[in-house]
């Protein structure tokens, strides 16, 4: 028998430990304010009476140190600007998201091997987010696409850039990019059109509504974050 540790740090992007320590302390459950409200309540709308409630504002902060396990190579690849997937040597299925073990029932959890993937793919389905993550709200309306990377048997969800939301469609060929300064998660990956998009069929009413929705979304972004 051997002991597995201790771990050796090979490369590191250091964190500001003092900042995060303080951040965690501030998110320490003690109320930072409160209010007392009156509202009708009861188990049914036929049975309501006024009640008073006290509400405390209680922050709670978490900070995880997460290992990407045996698929770490995908994320290490992002740091080098490369896209990796895994391939099952038995059945040939190619995974991105990668799996360290093949899930084809015939392959009995066979260990997979790493392969480099082309930065090309096709839109399997898409949406236009008018509500994205808070940290991405300034990018709304934001196209999200399930992208089948060339040669893979999976779709990877990612956002798209340089695309008119009105024109994105299923079947669109895309180029896949990795952020110049990758942070080390899937959000480092995004797609752009690799061909002139052929928009989906919309009735005149649908198109009018779609354009109004985009305009409303953009107006909110301008109001919240200032003009681009």
């Amino acid at each position, binding site marked *: 028998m051997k002991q597995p540790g201790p771990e050796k740090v090979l490369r590191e992007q250091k964190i500001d430990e003092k900042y995060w320590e303080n951040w965690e302390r501030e998110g320490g459950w003690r109320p930072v304010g409160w209010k007392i*409200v009156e*509202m009708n*309540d*009861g*188990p*049914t*709308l*036929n*049975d309501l009476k006024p*009640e008073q*409630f006290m*509400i405390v504002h*209680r922050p*709670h902060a978490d900070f995880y140190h997460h290992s*990407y396990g045996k*698929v770490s190579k995908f994320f290490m690849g992002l740091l080098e600007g490369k896209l990796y997937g895994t391939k099952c040597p038995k*059945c040939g*299925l190619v995974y991105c*998201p990668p799996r360290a073990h093949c*899930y*084809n*029932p*015939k392959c009995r959890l066979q260990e997979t091997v790493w392969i480099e993937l082309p930065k090309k793919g096709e839109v*399997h*389905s*898409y*949406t*236009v*987010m*008018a*509500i*994205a*993550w*808070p940290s*991405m709200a300034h990018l709304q*309306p*934001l196209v*999200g*696409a*399930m992208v*089948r990377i060339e040669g893979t*048997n*999976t*779709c*990877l*969800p*990612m*956002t798209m850039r340089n695309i008119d*939301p009105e024109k994105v469609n*299923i*079947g669109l060929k895309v180029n896949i990019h990795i952020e110049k300064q990758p942070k080390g*998660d*899937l*959000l480092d990956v995004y797609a752009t059109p690799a061909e002139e998009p052929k928009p*989906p069929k919309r009735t005149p009413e*649908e198109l009018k*509504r*779609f354009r109004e*929705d985009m305009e*409303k979304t953009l107006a909110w972004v301008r109001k919240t974050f200032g003009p681009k």
Partner: protein
Amino acid sequence: MSKKVGIVAGSISRFDNPRHTLQEEMCAEAVKMILDDVPDLEIGDFIKKGYACCYSYFSDILEQQQCMHWIIHDYLGLSGVPAFRVESGGATPIDAVVNAALWIRSGMFPVVLVVGWEKMNELPIQKVNEAIAIAGDTDWDFVSGFTYNAFYATLETRRMHVYGETEEDLAEVAVLCHNNSLDNPYAQWPAQHGFSKITVEDVYKSRLISWPYRLLECAMTSEGASALLLANEEMTKKLTDNPVWITGVGFGTDTMRPGDRPDNPAWKGLYPEDEKIWPKTIPRPLSPYPDLTNFGSLRVAARMAYKDAGIKNPRKEISLVEIFDPYAGVVLAGLEDFDFCKRGEGKKLLREGVIAPDGELPCQLSGALTAQGHAVGSTSIAQVVDVYWQLSNQIGKKWGAPGRQLSKPKRGFVHGHGGTGCQAGAVVLEV
């Protein structure tokens, strides 16, 4: 031994946002209604006579509490009584009902109380979205910038592309659900927005969330609780003279990540009839069913429940349906996955009025997730309660709206699921 499982009573403490009332207090309101309906049930019997409890809530993050069910159980005066919580995202409450039914069938417990709840107003709404979204794969789905809204939207876009569903179909589903909820005194939509009917135009006016979905086509975030008292045949007959029976239960699963479904080797050839239905103009994935168009877990759960209940032709044999519809398109997909029609034809049942309140197969009579509300751990239990009240002819009494009671319905079907259809459950109820 009889394998019959009876519903003795069911109750809801209404959905709203905010409720401000504590989880244990909402649960107590619901359980108190059951005690009022079943005078022969004593809380002290649970420990003395070997009954059990099964609890349902989804998120420790939303509640800011782990093991919340220990608080509920204690609060109800049940300490000592065998109990545990089930948790599987949105499938949590339907799994609790399935689990309780299987406990009774095992012969281990003659009576089981199921209680479910959720609090969804205590985090800011973006954080609520996040708390829900981390039920998706946090390395590979969530950190793409997609919320659940966005994932379900990509599933619906696929349905529009492959089947020709339209924005109008989605809006019509939302109209059906919202207007169905208007007589429901447990529903959140009328509690917040009053008692007037809405139209397709109102849906179009509601803000875009993630195209093609708009606000009124998405589940509400809610607070509320519900409870069901289940028992074996002997105890059911002792405790009530108006029983409804759970004659079929089922549950199924699909991949964690929806992106893995189109070529999933585990599904290839499982449903050949459905695989045949695929447009020639669209590249055919390795596993054309479910692809992203349908929910395979719903199919597995429904067929298991039908087999269990001895149902051969669900469209003819089932009188009413409650579908777990976090987004409007799930109603249309569900109709297909539950064998009420062929894949791609869910929109036909909607357009032809089959699922309208006066149609052959009324669906979402409660208003379901977009209008009754979606306090996750309570949702499917409440939907089972709504169908139970219809089957036991209690809508007049429980809703105060006798006009909404269906005429002698025989059989109801309720389904629930979690994630993007990662796990699903179903029950068949029968008079």
